[in-house]
């Protein structure tokens, strides 16, 4: 009985084992599967994160590429082969002269056009637009040049250019640069210093050891002369040293300027011009210069339908008395010196120019030679840490005609609204022919803007 009991117990245990063993295996497999699912979920999450990051990175790269394209497109027109730029200056002002009423006035509006092709060629043109006393607008071409940059040391300049004799005309005459309202006597139009010329120039700069030098050399049509007829005699009335589109006498004028800068702030210049010039017009005594008339055949022929009043015909007949084409060319010589010294806020400068025209003994307008000479010394001081600037200038202009000669002291106080926007007040003490304009003191106010 006892053995039977043990048998059945063993049998039950075996049955239990047989029943429970598959259940345990199922649990283990379940756990394994669960672990695999969790691992897969983790991997899926990582893949999803990676995908999200990849998508984000792709977006960023797309944006960056788009940005690069936008910049490239913008930059494509930032530096095209041809650049166009308008600079220039303008000024308005008020002038009061002794014994005369003061008046407002527009000085000039002088736009300068720049057209530049790469680093090779530049076209420069400056207009000079002003309003005269009669309210009419005067327009002139101050200069027009095509500049070809040959190399680092030379630029070829062709066209109508500002005279490189001295510094005032070519560098200092713009109102936002000139420290005083007026130009020094003798440096304006019809003065001792040439204004402009038409021809070709070679300009540039180079090093001499540790110092620099610059130069300008030109060939040009040169000036024309004005003869004056007074008291039954001709005399030399003046030199029109402005660019002429033809060379009446056929003789070119050669000249140039050389400057050396022994130290960075100091410039010493020497100028020279020599050639021929002939009389091309006659100035009426103490009056206006008549219109010029070419002495080419047919110039004075009446065209059918033309209307000439009696006064004009009489004027033409007077002009025909002189054949300007046969007037002999006279000697024409100019030389000058200039100095500029910039020492901190001080700027000192001076300039001397002498123009000499030779005699003519055989022409209809034969007359002795004449000389024009002028010089000035100027000091200006920009008061440190302020916008105020002071200036003083002395000029001595000796003309061939005593009525034009003038000595002048000019004092100025300027306020710099910006570097190129300047309010200027100038008072001039003038010493000329008593009773004439050149002898009258005056004060001038000007607002100048260089743009």
């Amino acid at each position: 009985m006892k053995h039977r009991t043990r048998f059945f117990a063993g049998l039950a245990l075996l049955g239990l084992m047989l029943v429970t063993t598959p259940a345990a295996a199922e649990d283990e497999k379940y756990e394994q599967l669960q672990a695999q699912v969790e691992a897969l979920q983790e991997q899926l999450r990582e893949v999803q994160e990676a995908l999200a990051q990849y998508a984000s990175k792709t977006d960023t790269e797309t944006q960056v590429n788009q940005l690069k394209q936008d910049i490239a497109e913008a930059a494509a027109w930032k530096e095209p082969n041809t650049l166009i730029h308008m600079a220039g200056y303008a000024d308005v002002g008020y002038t009061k002269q002794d014994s005369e009423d003061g008046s407002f006035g527009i000085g000039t509006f002088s736009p300068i056009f720049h057209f530049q092709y790469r680093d090779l060629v530049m076209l420069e043109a400056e207009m000079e637009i002003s309003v005269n006393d009669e309210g009419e607008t005067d327009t002139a071409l101050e200069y027009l040049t095509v500049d070809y940059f040959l190399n680092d040391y030379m630029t070829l300049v062709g066209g109508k250019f500002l005279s490189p004799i001295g510094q005032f005309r070519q560098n200092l005459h713009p109102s936002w640069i000139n420290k005083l309202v007026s130009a020094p006597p003798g440096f304006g139009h019809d003065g001792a210093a040439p204004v402009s010329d038409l021809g070709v120039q070679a300009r540039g700069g180079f090093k001499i050891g540790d110092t620099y030098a610059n130069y300008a050399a030109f060939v040009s049509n040169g000036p024309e002369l004005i003869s004056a007829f007074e008291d039954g005699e001709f005399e030399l009335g003046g030199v029109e040293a402005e660019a002429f589109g033809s060379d009446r006498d056929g003789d070119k004028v050669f000249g140039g300027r050389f400057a050396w800068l022994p130290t960075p702030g100091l410039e010493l210049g020497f100028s020279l011009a020599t050639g021929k010039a002939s009389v091309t017009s006659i100035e009426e005594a103490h009056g206006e210069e008549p219109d010029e008339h070419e002495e080419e055949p047919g110039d004075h022929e009446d065209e059918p339908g033309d209307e000439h009043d009696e006064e004009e015909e009489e004027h033409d007949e007077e002009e025909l008395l002189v054949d300007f084409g046969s007037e002999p060319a006279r000697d024409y010589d100019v030389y000058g010196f200039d100095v500029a010294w910039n020492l901190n806020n001080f700027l000192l400068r001076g300039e001397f120019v002498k123009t000499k025209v030779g005699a003519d003994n055989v022409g209809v307008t034969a007359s002795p030679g004449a000389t024009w000479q002028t010089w000035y010394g100027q000091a200006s001081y920009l008061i440190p840490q302020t916008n105020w600037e002071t200036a003083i200038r002395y000029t001595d202009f000796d003309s061939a005609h005593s009525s034009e000669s003038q000595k002048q002291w000019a004092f100025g106080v300027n306020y710099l609204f910006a570097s190129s926007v300047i309010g200027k007040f100038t008072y001039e003490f003038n010493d000329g022919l008593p009773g004439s304009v050149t002898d009258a003191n005056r004060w001038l106010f000007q607002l100048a803007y260089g743009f």
Partner: protein
Amino acid sequence: MTISIQNRPRVGTIWMVLFCGMILSGPMLATDYLEEGDAQNGARTWAENCNRCHNARDPQDLRDDQWTTSVFHMRVRAGLTGKQTRDVLEYLQTANNWPVSLSTEVAQAGSGTARSGEEVYGRVCVACHGADGKGTVPGAPDFTDADGPMAQSDAILLEHIRDGFKSPKSPMAMPPRGGDPNLNQGEMEAVLEFMRKSFSD
């Protein structure tokens, strides 16, 4: 000056030969789009030359392309060499656009071999500020002035050196890092220390 009529044709001939010789020799050296300029040399050239005729204009007055035509115009007018022209142009185009300059330079900061403060001052700063620290161009401040810029904290002065600065009464601005994009933080601190030792003590 007297030049006789008989001698004039000879003067003209000699002049024409020289003139034509200069022109004909020019194209052999002509090139286009030469190497870029050096902003530091440009700052020095700008400071030394422009004020001789007119007040120096603020670099931010014009855009890069406008400065290109303006500086080439001045090359002809002032007799600058091509190298001087490129240097001045580089300086103006660097100094007129602070944010771009800053980002470019920040990226480059820290590169290069560190220079001493004295070396940096002599190379970068001296053109405008002068060896004596009193300034060589209009608007440059006097570092020896007890109430001047050196009275400010190091943090402010380093910011001015790093980002560029324009004094309220100055016609021209100092470009970021004085125009030297390779000036790193250590060099800026060194040059400030040199300036304090040289001009404030």
